[in-house]
């Protein structure tokens, strides 16, 4: 892993809360999160449902406002979405009336990146190749399987060549077999593009296989419980030694122990 010192995302004492108007109360989703993410790093957030992982990603993307503290991308406070940050959604969030190609083009239509038509076409083609969807340009999302839909989602995110890729449980709705293939694709793509990736998952295996660091977040309010370094060499996905190693089992056990109590709380409904 190359050691690059510049920190691309810096969250400092970040708190996010939501107003529950009906109960005249405030729900604190995330509390005092301080996290520095280096350029090119793959950071995975794990934690029980409702712990505020999505809030963190949404704050970095600029979709939701911060309550306290700050999130900076390249030293600039995040106030709105920008072309340097792209997102992959759990439910794909593809526009159903647009073809695969047209969905991938959406970011170019919405913002002026100063690209010529030819450059756009080349980039769309490159994105399609990267996610292995050549030949499906004219298909509509409803004609595709879940795994293919998410490939479109990833291609759309890559279209603007963003520095930061935010992924909110992108493979949660995909079956187990396709999921493993998608994880391998994700690792390959991020290695190829050198992007910084913030990835949310419920799967500890996914976290260990993809992440350079795994950030374990506690349940309500979401706080950083521990940050676990994972230093298996890449690519890890098609390397059977990684999954069968003793270190893998230990890491898995360690993270599960961190998450276990929190997960139990959610089943009890607090």
């Amino acid at each position, binding site marked *: 892993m190359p050691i690059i010192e510049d920190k691309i995302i810096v969250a400092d004492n970040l708190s996010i809360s939501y107003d529950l108007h009906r109960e005249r109360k405030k729900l604190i989703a995330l509390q005092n999160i301080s996290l520095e993410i280096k350029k090119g790093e793959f950071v995975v957030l794990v934690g029980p449902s409702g712990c505020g992982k999505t809030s963190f990603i949404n704050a970095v993307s600029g979709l939701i406002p911060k309550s306290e503290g700050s999130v900076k991308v390249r030293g600039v406070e995040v106030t709105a979405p920008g072309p340097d940050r792209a997102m992959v959604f759990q439910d794909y969030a593809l526009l159903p*009336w647009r073809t695969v190609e047209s969905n991938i083009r959406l970011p170019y*239509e919405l913002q002026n990146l100063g690209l010529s038509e030819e450059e756009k076409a080349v980039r769309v083609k490159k994105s399609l190749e990267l996610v292995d969807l050549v030949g499906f340009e004219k298909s509509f999302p409803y004609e595709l399987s879940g795994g293919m839909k998410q490939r479109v989602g990833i291609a759309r995110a890559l279209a603007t060549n963003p520095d930061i890729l935010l992924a909110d449980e992108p493979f949660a709705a995909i079956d187990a077999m396709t999921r493993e293939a998608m994880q391998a694709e994700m690792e390959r793509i991020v290695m190829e593009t050198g992007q910084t990736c913030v990835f949310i998952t419920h799967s500890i295996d996914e976290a260990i296989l993809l992440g350079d660091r795994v950030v374990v977040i506690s349940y309500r309010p979401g706080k950083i419980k521990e940050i676990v370094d994972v230093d298996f060499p890449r690519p890890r996905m098609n390397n059977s030694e990684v999954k069968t190693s003793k270190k893998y089992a230990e890491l898995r056990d360690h993270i599960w122990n961190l998450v276990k109590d929190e997960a139990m709380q959610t089943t009890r409904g607090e």
Partner: protein
Amino acid sequence: MAKATNEIQYETDDPNRIQDVGWTLKEVWRRTRGFIVTSVNLIIFFILWEIITTYGNINSLFLPKASAMFQELWVGMTTRAPEGAVFSGSILDHFLHSFKNLMTGLAIACAIGIPGGLLMGGNKYVESILSPYVWALASLPRIALVPLFILFLGFTTTMQVTIIVLSAVFPIIINAWAGVKTTEKSLLAAAKVFGANRVQLYYKVVLPYTLPFIISGIQQGIGRGLIGVVIAELFGGSNGLGYLIQRSADTFNTAMTFAVLLLLIVMSLSLINFTRWLEAKVAPWRNVNHL
């Protein structure tokens, strides 16, 4: 989420995976059976009608022969009243009058209802100001307004069109409104992440998402509008299909009454099927199972 049945298989790796089966008899039947069954069904229905009215002891004042109805319909649709006639016995004349009113009414209802519903869905102030009036008028049986509009506008075409507009506009408003309100949050989030401003959010996401809702609204509007047509003409007017129903029944020409009813059914079904086709055309992704 992704259902296996929804997956369309493409010629991916193995070219032998998709094989040409050609036209089998079974396939031809599979495609045409709906049409054939319906046709046979209707033919049997009208033949039974004819047999019962011919051999049964039934007063043709109450139930005319099916053939008499069809003859009345054929003659009525192929002849026009002479120039300057006070009253036309031609079904075609009355049909054209009603159809023109219906189309005018629907066009006005769309012109009011679509922007109205979109505004109500998009702006919470407009919504809270207009919604009590929309719900009040939408829940009021429109027929109750007819005497009032006859008082305001007299026995005129304007009155008839007004009744049609009032009948058709509310389902259009309510559907467009609901479409905007139910636009999937993740689609909006995606558009925002990829740089959409407020205007783009509307015409790239909200409008296309709402389009099939608007078409369902128009579809319901057609049904309500037709009720409006007949009611307005029954109550006040000297032309239109509603008036012709009244007139033919008053003059004991029951075959004519039945002919007009049949025409109304055909007209209504054609318009509704047109909007269904349109809906499937503009929003194949919605995968709505129609009755």
